Structure formats: structure tokens, C-alpha cells
């Protein structure tokens, strides 16, 4: 019973992805559902890391906006390292996404 409902859920989730509901909350919730269901865990780890990098970068940017650019080099170093880590994580994600196996043998 649970299996059937789960199978049904599995069968219905691809259909739910193609649900033509045009409301924004509907799109967001279906995106979230599709994401949590279909993404491998490794990619999710990278995604968490990327969110963390973005957060750190935003914190530094806001701090610089408030306090001013006095130690400008320090700001560039911190912000640049956050952005660079984000970019490298994105590259790793692209490379290891099973859906891109055709391009990255």
C-alpha cells in the first residue's frame, strides 16, 4: 500500500514536474519537490556548500557597504575567495552531474 502509493507518487512526480500551474507558489513548490526527489545526494552536498559560499560573500559585501572600503585589499581577498569557491563548486557540480555524462566522459 505504501509501496503503491510511493510508486504512484514516483509516477506522478514526473507528471507533477510538467504541471502547467502558472502561479508562482505552485512553480516554486514543484521545483522544490522535483529537486529534493531527483537530485543525487552528492550534488546536494555541493549545493549546500555553494549556498554557504554565497552567504559568506553576502555577509562580507554588506559589512563593506556599512563600514566602508578601508582595508580594501582585505575585502577583495575575502569576497574573492568566497566567489572563487562558489565558481569551483559550480564547475565540480557540472562535471559530476550524471545528466552531463555525455559531455564529461
Amino acid at each position, binding site marked *: 500500500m505504501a509501496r503503491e502509493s*510511493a510508486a504512484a507518487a514516483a509516477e506522478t512526480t514526473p507528471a507533477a514536474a510538467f504541471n502547467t500551474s502558472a502561479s508562482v507558489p505552485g512553480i516554486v513548490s514543484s521545483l522544490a519537490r522535483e529537486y529534493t526527489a531527483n537530485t543525487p545526494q552528492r550534488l546536494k*552536498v555541493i549545493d549546500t*556548500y555553494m549556498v554557504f559560499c554565497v552567504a559568506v560573500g553576502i555577509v*562580507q559585501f554588506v559589512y563593506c557597504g556599512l563600514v566602508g572600503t578601508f582595508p580594501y585589499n582585505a*575585502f577583495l581577498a575575502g569576497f574573492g575567495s568566497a566567489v572563487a569557491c562558489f565558481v569551483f563548486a559550480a564547475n565540480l557540480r557540472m562535471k559530476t552531474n550524471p545528466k552531463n555524462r555525455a559531455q564529461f566522459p
Partner: protein
Amino acid sequence: MRLLPSLGICLALGGAWLKAVEAKSATGDRVLVLVPTTESAKQYTYFLGTLETRGFDISVRAASNSSVALHLDGERLYDHAILLSPAAKKFGSDLTAHNFIRFVDDGGNLLVAASSELSDFHRKLGAQFGVEFEKRGSRAIDHVSHLSENGSDDHSVVAAHRFFGVPAVLPSTFGGNNPGTVLYKGIAHKYEAKNPLLVPVLVGSTTTYSGNAATGGDSDNKALSPMDTPLSGKALGLVSVFQTRSNARVAFSGSTELFSDSLMKKHGSSNTQFVTEVSKWVLQEKSVLRETGHRHHLLSTGEKPEYYRIGNEMVYEIDLSVYRDDAWHPYVANDVQFEAIMLDPYVRLTLNRTLPTDSKSPLATYRGDIKLPDRYGTFTFRVNYKRTGYSNVDVKDTVAIWPLRHDEYPRFLTAAYPYYTSSFVMIIGFLALSTAWLWNAEPKAKTNVKDEGKTKTKTKTKQSATSKPKPN
């Protein structure tokens, strides 16, 4: 014949050298007094007598004496000169106006007394210092406050009681509620008010004017009409003093009778005190400032480095003394300023007096804690103290301020701590990502068995674990 005066001069020099140890004046005690004739010096016996008791070595010479010289081989022969012969058209061969100016430039002090019959020599001499004497033949006249005794009124003997307030020259007892009365018979002068070095000491009161004594009219012997504006009131100077930048002092008085015994002995006149105070100031017996030493060093180590660094904290100290009553006393003021200059002053600070450790010390130490500016270069530490009536003190020190070496800057700036922490956090995050990536235990079955819980995944992985060795 010329040997005798020169021998006399040599003896006087030798005697002056011996006597210099006990000189009352801060700059020396050789005084040259020039009078019309040596007999006329008798009317100044009281004044000259007080000078002698104050320790001066007085040489009285006649104005026409051609052997009197102010300089010998480039050195001054006298330290002070008092001119009491206003009518002399020229003095000795060596006593030109130019030589008197040179005498003052070399540090000699001058006391010039004029009268209604003053000569062009005195007029030219006064003009060099901004003092314009009135026309020859005119006098300072006052119909209200003048000498009146025994029924005889002499309106040309002015009882002047308006003193200019310079406490360094005249003590405040002369001003205030009970000003003294100085009996003055002579010519008035205009003093250049814009000149900061020239200070009037005794000026005319509201009823004093400069006019012709015979008629009481103006100096052209015409009766005064309402359209005339003779010199009068506060603009009419009777006694003015001048201090040069080289600390030589010159005093101009339009009256020789001011110094005479007759006016000094009159009842109610404070001529004696006035003349004493003014002569004390001119002959450098009071209000003479001196800097005895200055030092600067780092605040932290207390030692004077070869060069300073930008932003260093340092301490500057200077010792000042003032000469009065025959001795050097600590000079107390609250406006001694220190400047650090490189073309423009970067730092200007008022120095405070440190508490004296020794109450008998003749100097006052002024100290300032200075933070050097952020500029590097060659700076001048300067204390430039110029006040009316006091000697000038100008003390300069050239120092180098070096920029910081590359390893002398602060290692971590407090404003940048968020950036430092974010860098280290990124490092830790990358290590966490690596561990998560490498030792990732991915649930094999995806969304199908998610609701079944972990047991199924555990069994599945166990199965896959057991099944794994097979392909190997």
C-alpha cells in the same frame, strides 16, 4: 692726545670685562651718555646716579667730542647709549645715524631724548623706528592737566597720566585707578600704530595737543581754528619704546627734562618711578627672556632617536627664564606654543608647565606630548615666542621623520577581522566539502524507498556490500 682716550677705553673695557660678572643688566653695563656739554650733565645727576647704583659703568661725553666711537674693530664699545642732547646737529665723527642703527642691530640698547629744539639727526633716527617727531619748535601742551605750583602755570609742562598697558614695560601700578603723574616738557611724536615692534608707553590725555608754545596755537604760530587737526589725544605719543627682532631695545622720549632733577623733585610727580621702570626695560634689566635648554625624545623609551617614524609619540620640553630684580626667575605663561613645521605647521600645541621639583630653580620647564603627523619628511620643531615687551625666543630643531618599513605596519587591522574570518571559514568549508564528497554514503535507491525508512537502505547497502566483492 688720541692715546689717552683710547687708553681710557682699553681700561674701561678691561674694567667692564671684570665687572661683567656682577652686571645688573642682562646684556652688559657699559653706558655711553651723550650730553651737549659736560656741565649740562649736572641737571641729570639724580638719574645718572641711580644708574650708577644699579651697577652701570657710565661714560659721559659731550656731543661734540669727536673721539667717541661706538665700534672698534667690529665690536661694540658700549652696551647702551643714552642721547640727552637733542639740539646737536651732528655728533662725533663716528656717531652718524647709520652707526647708531648698526649699534642697535648689533644688540646695543638706545635711549633717545628729544626736545622742542630737536635736530634733523634725531628726526632721522626716530624715523627709522617709526617715530615721527613733530615740527621743530612745537611742544606738547595741555591746558587742563599741567604743572601748576606757586601760582605759576606752565601749560607746556604736561602732567601726563595716560599710560599704555604693557605690563612687561610698566608694571600695572602705573595704570589702573591711581595712575601716577609724569611731568613732561618737550615735543610730541606720532607713533606708527601698525608697527608691532613699536609700543607707546606714555601718550597724551584727551586734553593734550601739540602746538606752538609761544602762542598756544598750532605749530605754524597761527591761532588754532576749528578746521585744524593737530596731533592730540591718544595718537600723541610722549614716550614710545621699540624692541627689535634681535632683542635690542630702543626708547624715544620727546623730553629731556623728563630725566632732569628739577622735574623729578617736584611734588607729586612720579617721574622717578617712571624713569626707573622705562630705563630698566631699555637697559635690559627686566623682561628679558632666555631659553636655557630644550629636549625632545620618544615617549615610550625616553631616548632621543636618530630619526623619528610617522605617528610616533614624543615629548618636547623647553626651559624658559625671565630676568628681573638682578636674577633669573622661572618664566610663567600659558601661551608657549610648539610647532612641527614642514613648509606649513602640521602640529601646533600649547605647552604646559611641569611642576617644579626645585623651588629655587631659575627656569620653568614647559612640556608637550606630541603625536607626530602621518607625513614623512624633514620637519622643524620650533618654539617661536614673541610677546610685546618681552625678548624674543625662537628655538629651532631639525629632525627627520621616516616612513614605516614594510614590516612595521600593523599585522592585522581590527576593521578587517570579518574578512580574515571569512577566509579561514572558506578553508574550513572546503575541507568539509572534501570530506563530504569523498566519504559520501549516498542512499542507493532514490525517491522510491524514501518513505520506507532507513532500514531498507541499510539492507540494500548491506546487500550491495556483500555483492560488491564479486566483480573484483
